[in-house]
């Protein structure tokens, strides 16, 4: 009897210890690798190159977090997920964070028990139609067939938009962006709708990009951002502030070129705090003092990452638009590092 009580107590203590050490940050450090969920492939946002290395705008967030936590931007295990498997992969613990052009919505944040740590791209849903259709506004699309990716917020937005404008449409459900492209070009649907960034990327690959127009209506807000599991706030903070460090770095003028110089100490106390020469921000997060420096060193600041992967000089060719710094009329606004 006594023995079983002791055994029971030990089991309980073991369980408690297990629960206490189950922080994702500790897990990642112990593993030496960050498991980051990405898309199976989206032009400019995430795709492996000819050498099999992942590249893209979402991939850069994963790499920045890995650099901040582990000091090595290559210590990432990229776990490709589809629109249907992404949330279960995160909820089951198969991945530590998801950076997969996922829209921040109320129900995903609250009901599915995830925590969106910020926004790395402000997108919105748009429409693309062939120019010869002669359509100049989405409100003229009564009775159109629309290619739409299933299992996404775009599907719901589309239904809302057509219902509120009292016009009808016929959906053509498709699985991937590649399929959509082919269906649209083959004339299976009159309209292709998805996030405006996706439309621009898709149009850039057409034989005749000028033959297609993106309609002016943006029918939804699609703040895309990385997310983590609900309840592990230490880990959520790490991912949030790694992203904010990239955004703040652009605002403060820290680039991959002048990073070394800046990290030696500057007149600006905020830069010093960010790069770890002053204050103990890294320690508060449970990271080393140069965490933000490593994150920025991996790919450059937010602006550099944008320009390299999806900016105007790339085939995707997106303008900064809403994704400019708040000082330049955009929505990017990193809270102070203090």
């Amino acid at each position, binding site marked *: 009897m006594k023995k079983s009580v002791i055994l029971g107590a030990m089991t309980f203590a073991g369980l408690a210890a297990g629960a206490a050490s189950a922080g994702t940050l500790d897990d990642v450090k112990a593993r030496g690798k960050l498991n980051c969920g990405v*898309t*199976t*492939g*989206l*032009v*400019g946002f*995430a*795709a*492996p*190159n*000819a050498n*099999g290395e992942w590249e893209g705008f979402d991939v850069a967030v994963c790499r920045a977090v890995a650099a901040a936590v582990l000091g090595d931007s290559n210590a990432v*295990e990229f*776990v*490709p*997920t*589809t629109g*249907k*498997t992404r949330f*279960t*992969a995160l*909820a*089951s*613990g*198969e991945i530590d964070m998801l950076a997969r052009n996922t829209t921040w919505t109320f129900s995903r944040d609250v009901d599915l028990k995830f925590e969106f740590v910020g926004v790395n791209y402000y997108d919105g849903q748009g429409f693309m139609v062939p120019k010869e259709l002669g359509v100049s506004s989405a409100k003229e699309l009564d009775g159109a067939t629309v290619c739409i990716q299933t299992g996404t917020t775009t599907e719901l937005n589309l239904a809302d938009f057509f219902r509120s404008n009292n016009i009808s449409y016929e959906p053509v459900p498709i*699985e*991937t*962006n*590649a*399929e959509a*492209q*082919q269906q649209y070009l083959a004339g299976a649907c009159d309209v292709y709708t998805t996030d405006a960034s996706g439309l621009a*990327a*898709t149009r*850039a*690959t*057409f*034989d005749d990009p000028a033959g297609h127009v993106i309609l002016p209506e943006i029918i939804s807000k699609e703040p895309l951002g990385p997310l983590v599991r609900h309840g592990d706030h230490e880990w959520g903070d790490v991912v949030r502030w790694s992203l904010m460090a990239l955004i703040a770095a652009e605002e403060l003028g820290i680039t991959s070129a002048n990073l070394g110089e800046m990290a030696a100490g500057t007149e600006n106390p905020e830069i010093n705090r960010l790069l770890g020469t002053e204050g103990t921000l890294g320690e508060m997060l449970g990271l080393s003092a140069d965490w933000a420096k490593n994150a920025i060193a991996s790919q450059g600041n937010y602006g550099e990452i944008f320009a390299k992967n999806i900016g105007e000089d*790339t*085939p*995707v060719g997106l303008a900064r638009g809403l994704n400019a710094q708040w000082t330049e009329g955009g929505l990017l606004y990193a809270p102070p590092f203090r």
Partner: protein
Amino acid sequence: MSDTHAHSIAFVRDTEIPPSPPPAGETGVVKWLRENLFSNAVNSALTIASLLVIYILLSKTLPWLLNGVWTTNSLAECREVLQGKTGACFSVLTERWNQLLYGFKYPSDQYWRPNLALVLLLFAIAPVLFFDLPRKLLAFTAVYPFLAFWLIWGGTILAPIVALVGFAAGAFVFQTYGKSSFAVGFFGAIAAAFAVWILGGWLIPEGASENAMLKAVPSRDLGGFMLNLMLGVTCVSLSLPLGIALALGRQSDMPLIKWMCVVFIEFVRGVPLITLLFVASVMLAYFFPPESTVDLFLRVVIMITMFSAAYIAEVIRGGLAALPKGQYEAADSLGLDYPQAMRLIILPQALKISIPGIVNVAVGLFKDTTLVSVISMFDLVGMIRGPILASTEWNGVYWELLGFAALLFFVVCYGISQYSQWLERRLATDHR
């Protein structure tokens, strides 16, 4: 009278006239054409229509094929080279062939390993497929799965050796005790195999995989056509014995076994493969703690094997049902017990009848392996749909990539079907 006659004939031929060639319309190509293609008005019309269709097809595809560009670095460059002419952009194949065949993460300096495994596979399955070959070659077939595992996944050689020793111990126990009692031999063999595996698991030092002779490659890094072939070969070879067991179980007199088999077969056959794959990739992750999940490849193999085993079981049940009852009674009258009767009399005949059905399931299964792309495994189709079409260079190349995939699958499936036709001729299963 005869005189006049003799005078009226100036010349009498005393040699045979050499046969003259048949008229132009009754010989060679013309005759063949007339008899086969233009024998009547309807046939002529059909012939002309078919020729027109072939001409249209070729006139569209040949310029596309022959103008193909093989050397550029992106689709945009392809279009520049073509200057608006029709032409394929095969450069995607020359640049990404390795990703299509091996997936994008298999280390490129290790490609010889799956290649060698494939070549050895041919040697390993030869004695199984062509039973005229010497039976001793089967020894290599028995070793092959472990060798292939070691070649493809790398890591410590101890793991496959322990697995092999476990099977060998099981076989030994079965040989020794199976003769007197099948059940003792069977369960003893399973116990012996597990004893060896558990003991061997203890003996393999931790971290043995890190400094192994062959670099360890995790399952997640496998991909491309290699993954399709691996899934196809593994699942077919595993589901065949499982299917036989299920078919026999379904005919068993023991109610518990019978109903277990019936429920399993009917359940699996009543569920689409894709739902089973989603269960494998998504649901099972909830049941295991995050650190100790079963390897995704293994999960998928288990699901596909279950699926095809249920189908093969039904095919074999058909074969069993086709045997005359006299065969069972003959076995009984010889005093054979159940395992002997099955092994020596019933199954050889039943399997022979089932060959076309089994091959049909195997071909279908091999093509079904492309479904794993929906659970974000990068098999051949997954590579095309995901990474390659999402790269900025190749976004928009469809026909070339999917045509290549179709070609690879056609070669393999046509091979399987030719083999099954040869096998049917060789065994003459129709008793004509």
